[in-house]
């Protein structure tokens, strides 16, 4: 909210130093987003009359103008063309410093000296008009040499752009802000408004509330003798400084009162309101209204989402026809027009939640709805009315406040709360004496009674954000702390006996990240939300976890895999000539509840009363390997290195039918041998996917890919770890020999390897070091060669022992389907 400092000063004495004022306001939660000095630097600008206009030889964009600014002819070079002889325009003489710091200097253009600058409205900081000079010819009594600030009755002012806390209903008004400042500076709050009083006259209008739960109070003032004209310049200027356009004196008076007192009011042309009757009721389903902005709005229909009941509150006339959406926007039919002479002014309190829902559903946010949805000060409706009359009288000397009609609905109860010194200290950790508490709260217009160390208060109607009960007590203590100053409150470093730390899964995630970077990979961050097209690459049969309201269609589905994201990340680097890279990512992928047997349920819906089935989230590590020579082999070897680092007991890489997006004949599952749990996949990205993603793929480029389920992996019941008790390597020499075996291609080397390892207690290790197929071997057979190490903890092995062990190795190999290659 933008407020002129002069307006605030009408209510409270403030320090001269703006920066200290800004600091205090920030500290009160009235955050200052900007400070604008207006009208400054205009003191030297004077009125000049155009006396002569000459062309300048060789120039068609500038002209030589001679003006009189009160002291005889002055030569000026001017680029504007919107003026004629005899016009009056502002002149900034040499030496003047315009708003924004631009200093006018003597200049010479095309041989002509310019002794100043004729100004546009924008150059003077008085509006946005930059199309030509500001023309003042029609100002009554204008003469050369007058000061511009006198002609326009401009005073320099400071506009504060204030961003109050979102829940404060009172701080969206001059009086509310002034009240906070008066409390902080411990100075009195003045109110320039005359207190309102009901004339008691009968009048001819009527006010009625048919839905008391939607409208707590309705006041309709009947005004006659209205002349619709422009506002006095002081009123118009304050509105403009607040960022509102001046429309006419009636609308301006309404806006002025809203800005000053936080009470929106709505003036109707009485002649256009049937029966002079202002009613308030709930909209009937399907009713519609053309609002002031020319749009027809359908009312009374529930929109999307919980809590939108479709209840709208409307203003009706004597025929029960809708003439306004209460608190949001008026109708076009009864707006103030030039011929209006009688006005009905609606001043009301509407149910905040109803206004909030209506304005949200209709997408109509107005200055009025913004205030009504926070709750307006219903105790001051009459004062606001009187203020409106006072302001409008400035331009309508014959204005008569004929009568006031009132109707009552249900108003919120103002909470009564007791706060003790102990309560305050228990929440804030700072002791504040009861009389200080009482002083602060009464300055904020709470009604206050002190009983020893405790204070009983009732919140003012301007503070509907204050709740009742325990929560209300916290609200009141926040008010105390705010005015007291957060900076003055004590600080203490708490201690407790429970230790801090990471849990097993978190520590493991760190190990995973460290081991992934240890592989020479770079950590990437790819979007969690992907496009339909990408989803169909990785989950063509899957059910999408779809965003209802995506920002862009490329980001509308929760990813089920990082394959497309990482492939794209690699491709974007490759396209820049940096494809020599391996990228990894650790993050969450999601599976739709209908695509998984895992149940994830959570409380949801209003009051958390429903059980909702939610997508299952899996934490994964994925990596794309795109360096020269990278492929499925490198990915498998990388898994081996990672498994070592993670301390896995024993796992098997088993070829498996491809997952979507993966290379169908070069991928495998990673399985824990002890439990049979699949905890990841390894292989390559489908070459078709790679080709689609990158514009600069080198033929034969392969992308190794792996994906590890970290939820499963960190569960040591599902993926076994090497035992903690570790045998010390034998100090006796090992016997080392190779074993070349022939095995069907269907039998994985890792199966044979496991068979060999467990064939005899003497086997220290059996490591695959070569495979061979082709040559004389038949198509379905290949040779696998293992390096075998035998050893004993007790002695050097003799030849017989080695022979026996070799026999056991071969028997085990045979059982696995492999035979010795002769």
């Amino acid at each position, binding site marked *: 909210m933008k407020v002129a400092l002069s307006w605030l000063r009408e209510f409270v004495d403030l320090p001269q130093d703006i920066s200290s004022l800004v600091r205090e306001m920030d500290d*009160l*939660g009235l955050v200052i987003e900007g400070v604008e000095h207006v009208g400054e630097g205009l003191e030297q600008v004077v009125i000049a009359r155009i006396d002569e206009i000459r062309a300048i030889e060789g120039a068609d964009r500038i002209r030589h103008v001679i003006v009189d600014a009160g002291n005889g002819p002055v030569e000026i070079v001017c680029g504007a063309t919107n003026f004629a002889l005899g016009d009056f325009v502002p002149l900034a003489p040499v030496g003047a410093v315009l708003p924004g710091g631009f200093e006018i200097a003597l200049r010479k253009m095309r041989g002509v000296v310019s002794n100043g600058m004729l100004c546009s409205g924008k150059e003077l900081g008085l509006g946005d008009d930059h199309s030509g000079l500001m023309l003042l010819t029609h100002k009554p009594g204008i003469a050369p040499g007058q000061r511009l600030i006198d002609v326009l009755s401009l005073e320099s002012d400071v506009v504060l752009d204030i961003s109050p806390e*979102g829940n404060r209903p009172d701080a969206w008004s001059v009086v509310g802000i002034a009240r906070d400042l008066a409390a902080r500076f411990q100075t009195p709050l003045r109110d320039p408004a005359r207190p309102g009083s009901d004339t008691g006259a009968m009048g001819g209008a009527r006010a009625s509330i048919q839905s008391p739960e939607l409208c707590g109070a309705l006041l309709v003032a009947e005004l006659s003798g209205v002349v619709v004209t422009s506002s006095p310049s002081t009123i118009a200027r304050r509105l403009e400084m607040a960022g509102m356009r001046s429309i006419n004196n009636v609308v301006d008076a309404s806006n002025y009162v809203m800005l000053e007192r936080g009470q929106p009011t709505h003036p109707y042309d009485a002649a256009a309101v049937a029966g002079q009757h202002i009613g308030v009721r709930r909209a009937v389903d399907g009713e519609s209204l053309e609002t002031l902005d020319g749009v027809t709005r359908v009312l009374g229909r529930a929109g999307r989402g919980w*809590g939108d009941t479709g209840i709208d509150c409307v203003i009706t006339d004597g025929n029960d026809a809708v003439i306004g959406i209460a608190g949001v926007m008026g109708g076009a039919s009864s707006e103030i027009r030039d011929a209006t002479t009688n006005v009905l002014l609606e001043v009301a309190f509407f149910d*905040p*939640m109803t206004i*909030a*829902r209506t304005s949200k559903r209709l997408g109509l946010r107005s200055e009025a709805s913004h205030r009504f949805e926070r709750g307006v000060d219903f105790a001051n409706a009459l004062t606001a009315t009187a203020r409106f009359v006072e302001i409008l009288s400035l331009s309508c000397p014959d204005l008569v406040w004929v009568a006031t009609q009132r109707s009552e609905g249900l108003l919120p109860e103002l909470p009564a709360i007791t706060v003790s010194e102990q309560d305050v*200290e*228990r*929440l*804030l*950790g700072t002791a504040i004496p009861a009389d200080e508490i009482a002083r602060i709260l009464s300055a904020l217009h709470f009604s206050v009674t002190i009983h020893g160390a405790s204070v009983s208060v009732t919140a003012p109607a301007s503070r509907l954000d204050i709740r009742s*009960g325990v*929560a209300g007590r*916290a*609200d009141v203590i*926040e008010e105390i702390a705010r005015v007291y100053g*957060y*900076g003055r409150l*004590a*600080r203490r*470093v*708490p201690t*407790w006996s*429970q230790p*801090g*730390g*990471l849990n097993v899964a978190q520590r493991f995630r760190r190990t995973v990240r460290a081991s992934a*970077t240890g592989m*020479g990979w*770079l*950590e990437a961050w*790819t979007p*969690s939300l992907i496009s339909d097209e990408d989803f169909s690459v990785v989950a063509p049969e899957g059910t999408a976890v*779809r*965003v*209802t309201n995506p920002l862009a269609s490329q980001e509308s589905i929760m990813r089920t895999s990082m394959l497309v994201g990482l492939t794209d990340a690699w491709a*974007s680097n490759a396209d*820049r000539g*940096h494809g020599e890279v391996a990228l990894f990512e650790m993050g969450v992928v999601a599976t739709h509840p209908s695509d998984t047997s895992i149940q994830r349920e959570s409380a*949801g819906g209003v*009051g*958390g009363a*429903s059980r909702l089935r939610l*997508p299952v989230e899996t934490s994964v590590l994925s990596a794309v390997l795109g360096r020269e*020579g990278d492929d*499925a082999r490198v990915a*498998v*070897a990388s898994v081996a290195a990672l498994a070592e680092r993670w301390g896995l007991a024993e796992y*098997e*890489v088993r070829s498996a039918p491809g997952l979507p997006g993966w290379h169908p004949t*070069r991928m*495998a599952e990673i399985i824990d041998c002890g439990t049979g749990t699949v905890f990841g996949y390894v292989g390559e990205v489908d070459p078709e996917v790679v080709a689609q993603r990158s514009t600069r793929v080198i033929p034969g480029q392969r992308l190794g890919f792996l994906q590890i389920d970290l939820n499963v992996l960190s569960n040591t019941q599902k993926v076994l770890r090497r035992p903690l008790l570790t045998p010390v390597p034998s100090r006796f020499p090992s016997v080392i020999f190779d074993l070349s075996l022939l095995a069907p291609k269907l039998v*994985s*080397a*890792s199966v044979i390897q496991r068979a060999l390892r467990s064939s005899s207690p003497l086997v220290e290790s059996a490591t*695959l*070091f070569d495979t061979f197929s082709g040559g004389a071997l038949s198509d379905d057979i290949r040779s*696998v060669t293992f390096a075998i190490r035998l050893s004993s903890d007790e002695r050097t092995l003799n030849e017989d022992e080695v022979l026996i062990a070799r026999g056991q190795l071969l028997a085990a190999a045979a059982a696995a389907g492999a035979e010795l290659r002769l």
Partner: protein
Amino acid sequence: MVDVSLDNLDAVVAQCVGAISDASSLDSLLSLEAEMVGKRSPFTALQKSLGSLSPDERKSAGAQLQAARQRVEEAFATRRTSLAAEHRIAVLEADRLDLGDVVSARVRVPVRAGHPGIISLTQESLEDTFVGMGFVVADGPEIETDWYNFEALNIPPAHPARGMWDTFYLDIGEPETVLLRTHTSPTQIHLMEEAVAQGTLPLHAVMPGRCYRRDTPDARHLASFHQIEGLVVDEGITFADLAGTIETFTRAFFGPDITSRLRPAYFPFTEPSAEFEITCTICRGAGCRTCSQTGWIELGGCGMVDPAVFAAVGIDTDRYSGFAFGFGIDRCAQMRHGIADMRAITENDVRFLELFS
């Protein structure tokens, strides 16, 4: 190929379709196509000859010819698709590799330093700082319900405060019940519920994680971002403990010359609420463009846990009180490394990724 006339159209089509389905490669299909429906094909010749017919005859003959031609072209399309699929299968078969046979010891990869991401790096060092202060670390889901993300945090349905978060909702359940969490705060609710259920209060935890807001990305905001949130629920906890904790963290994480201050703010889930600001890390408090000459930059929000939140999870406010705080991990990273445009973080440019270690 025989000449086509209007009399033998069906026979010719049948012959073509037969030849097309016999085509054994994409190359042979291509040459068949030129021969059958190309510029010099009998179909095209017949088309040209129709000019000599009367307008009525031309119309009916043209339609017949077009239909016949279309049948042939459909046959091409079908065969092309199946040949492409066969080709793909053949190529993939030739490429088959039994990954169980990979000899890891034989694999050679280039030696290169890896790098953790700037966000993880920052998150881990934030976690370490808080662990040192006695906090445990807790994780929570990214997909939440309206109850955990809003209502239990004292933001009832249709409450204007929901407008403070631009929320991505999911097409699951009733409208606007399932969503991508807009902050890490729902994890607080899970933690408190668990602690109440298991009788394990007090709680001293920080909760890092990815969150989502329906914001158009710009230099300072991303649609998904990372937050870290802290929660202490214990006996005798006051605002003084909150301010002291924020100060300790600020000095520990940003350095001894960086200090903190609190200013009033509004959050539905805390009362009193505060925004916390720290000494500008760019100018060290002297005033610069980053801090708009104030010497301070806003880091996050905090406050004493609102009684309504305690009520939602069933914590006895006569015995326990608590505070919570939260701020952006991305923003911390941005401030620490002076990153002008946040979007660099999601672009995964190798030249950027290699800068952090």
